[in-house]
């Protein structure tokens, strides 16, 4: 157990509304990641963070923003949700101090955009 929680675990929202997903970790890991999982695609990286206020884009970052004001929290925001953002979202941490250490995942958030 890497001490990762995600909230909410499930959310249904309407197109055009803003949505924020939270990832919280208790073990002071430096690197944190947001992935999305869609049928037929495995998991794909949205954004990642390498420290407080240090973030960068991943493979599928369009339509998403992130923030990290504290080591323990990494927020993913959909400024104006679209149906194509219906997905399961996973947060992950990198176990050691480096970004190429093994990643452990949170329990996921299922987001439905109507």
């Amino acid at each position: 157990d890497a001490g990762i929680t995600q909230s909410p675990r499930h959310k249904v929202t309407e197109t055009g509304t803003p949505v924020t997903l939270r990832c919280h970790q208790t073990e002071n890991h430096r690197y944190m990641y947001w992935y999305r999982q869609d049928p037929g695609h495995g998991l794909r990286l949205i954004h990642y963070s390498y420290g407080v206020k240090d973030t960068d884009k991943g493979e599928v970052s369009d339509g998403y923003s992130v923030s990290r004001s504290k080591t323990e929290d990494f927020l993913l925001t959909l400024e104006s949700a679209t149906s194509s953002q219906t997905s399961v979202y996973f947060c992950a941490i990198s176990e050691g101090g480096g970004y190429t250490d093994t990643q452990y995942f949170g329990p996921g958030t299922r987001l439905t955009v109507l």
Partner: protein
Amino acid sequence: AQTVTQSQPEMSVQEAETVTLSCTYDTSESNYYLFWYKQPPSRQMILVIRQEAYKQQNATENRFSVNFQKAAKSFSLKISDSQLGDTAMYFCAFMNRGGSQGNLIFGKGTKLSVKP
């Protein structure tokens, strides 16, 4: 760009038998990790096993072992003495240790059903 291919969308195995899941990858990098993750119906992503590319010895974790063929870019997972709790989606993943992101590149997964 790296890619990961899992050619078996679904597989089934009888309880107590052995099953092998296939994974191939494409990369020009020499320093990387390979992983197998398990995703049971609970949706939690669980690390099964990790292989460092520079190690020739195949990784093992209890009933799980890999066959890592670096030249062939193949990384299969063998599950021995299959148990009902092994029923899950299994994802193969690649990480370039020389990259700037450290992100995982996943295959599309293999759905494994263990039958009693």
